[in-house]
């Protein structure tokens, strides 16, 4: 079976700096994959290359939503990438602060809707039906993520952990086949991290999707992910199961420094 997301020799240069260096990377159908590495290793840049925020300077990104027939997506606009079925969250929360929680999720539904300006002005039957449906669908997603009690709150008034979860809810609203989470546990306390752990597994189970996450919290990474990729200085230094990664000398070196030089 073809991997649903594959990068081949993906490279991103910023001037003289090579932030992502020839990364070959795969996510298979139904997998939870983690991307780890020290700060500044190029993880988020890699994310941005996949989701279209940056146009990679070299290499290719392929997706295969159904598991067959790869499509090259590098250089595509972020909104197109989202339409193709890759949804992401952000490392530093980027919610629509002055919109309600429900509206945040409704924005996520946007690319699956079709109402236009004339539909809105004349309130055609199709538009009214669609609006009703989007409210329902969005509410259902909020219930799944456990945010339904905040439905009409402003996003900015939510507690931190709930804001993180709302970002995930908003991404889920775009009906992705692959969910990309950029440090979902950043700033969470151990209990919240545990809940997140549960939630990630539940999302995969309920929606039959794959998940790619960047994370620093090793307990979360080790417990949820089936496969881990490690990057350092833009290069892929290791890949494997959590147990393999734990023992990998290169990874230990990258995180803790070279023992011989210490």
């Amino acid at each position, binding site marked *: 079976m073809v991997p649903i997301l594959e990068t081949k020799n993906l490279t991103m240069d910023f001037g003289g700096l090579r932030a992502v260096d020839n990364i070959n990377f795969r996510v298979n159908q139904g997998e939870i994959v983690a991307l780890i590495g020290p700060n500044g290793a190029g993880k988020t840049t890699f994310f941005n290359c996949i989701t279209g925020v940056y146009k990679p300077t070299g290499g290719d990104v392929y997706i295969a939503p159904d598991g067959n027939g790869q499509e090259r997506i590098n250089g595509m606009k972020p909104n197109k990438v989202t339409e193709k079925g890759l949804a992401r969250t952000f490392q530093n929360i980027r919610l629509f602060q002055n919109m309600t929680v429900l509206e945040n999720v409704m924005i996520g539904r946007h690319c699956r809707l079709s109402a236009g300006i004339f539909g809105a*002005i004349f309130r055609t039957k199709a538009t009214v039906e669609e609006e009703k449906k989007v409210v329902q669908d969005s509410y259902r997603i909020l219930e799944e993520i456990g945010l339904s009690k905040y439905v009409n709150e402003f996003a900015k008034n939510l507690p931190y952990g709930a804001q993180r979860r709302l970002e995930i809810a908003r991404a889920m609203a775009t009906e992705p086949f692959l969910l990309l989470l950029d440090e979902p546990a950043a700033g969470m306390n151990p209990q919240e991290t545990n809940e997140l752990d549960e939630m990630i597994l539940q999302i995969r189970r309920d929606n039959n999707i794959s998940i790619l996450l960047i994370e620093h919290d090793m307990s979360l990474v080790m417990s949820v992910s089936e496969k881990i990729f490690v990057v350092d200085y833009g290069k892929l230094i290791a890949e494997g199961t959590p147990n393999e990664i734990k023992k990998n000398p290169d990874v230990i070196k990258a995180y803790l420094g070279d023992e011989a030089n210490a």
Partner: protein
Amino acid sequence: MSNILKYFSFKEIKKSLVMSVWFMILTFPIMVIKVNTIENTVIWRWNYLIGVGISSFIFASLWRYMIERKKLQGGSESTVPLLQKIRELGERKPTLKKGSLIGVIVLILVFPFITSMYQTGIMTTALMYVILGLGLNIVVGLGGLLNLGYAAFYAVGAYTYALLHIHFGLGFWVCLPIGALMATILGVLLAIPVLRLRGDYLAIVTLGFGEIVRIVLENWNAFSHGPSGIANIPRPTFFGIHFTLPQATIYLYFIMIALVVFTIFVVRRLENSRMGRTWIAMREDEIASQSMGINITQVKVTTFALGAFWAGMIGVVFAAKTTFINPASFTLWESIIILCVVVIGGMGSIVGVVVGAGILILLPEYLRAFSQYRMLIFGAILVLMMVFRPGGIVTSVRKVYKIEPHLQGGSDNKVEDK
């Protein structure tokens, strides 16, 4: 009394005293010393000093009091639900709501007949600014794109009517949609080069654009008749019937009422639609909204175009109202007034824009006696607004969706308008 005393301590009074002394020193040269250069005498007006001292002390105390009160009431939280309070009152007392609604409608309808032509004219102008404000509100309040060249679209509408009348003899009603359309096209043309700009840079570019349009109109004599403008533009007719001046004024007033109703109707529906949500999402976070599948290019172009549409429409009305237009009517100042209507009234709020237009256009007219202090008052209002109600007079309230999720079928939520 104890309520007021709560906010006043000895420290506060001391601060106010210091402030008043500072003001006395500051204004000493201009308020106290009067030099007569012809007779070479100096007059010392000490009583002025006392006046400055007392009045600045009162103002300073008032200022301290307001600030303290705002702090104790927990910032902006307490000021938000003004609109909601009114609405809740209306829900609790439906007869009162109905009664006041009918009262307002009757007042609007009889207004031109019980007041003078002058009053009707002022009110028509205010209504024009309501629509201009609502149009700019789409761009600035909802879309978050600071546009300082809005008067350019207004000018396009006005010149469209004037020129089409001169060259082709077209009337008001034909030109109304054409003017709006021309402005919309210009809006699209402006949106394309500024797609990548935001904030300050966008403001500068739109400002430049506004000036370019005005300068072109001023200098391209063959096309726009230059600074001398275009005169004898006909007032609107009613199925070919021409009115006398007083009749035409009343007629225009009712046209404006109809257009305001039309605009509010359309803007309200748009802002709570799929499209309106994308405007607000763009204002809140461009990158996030793009990552949520919103085509930011398309959204920017539509906000600019839709904002320009209303300005073009009102431009036609303006030309018909004044019967004479020249580029001097479409300066940067005009754009700033419209922006002030939106900012003072309340960004993103329709009621806010109506209130803002009322205050900014009607007050200067009724306070003609103080016209030389107009700019001073204007500045003071803006400063006070920013300190005490940074969200505008009427803060925008997001639509609240009522959800009854456990009912089945398509009608399982009641959507309540905001």
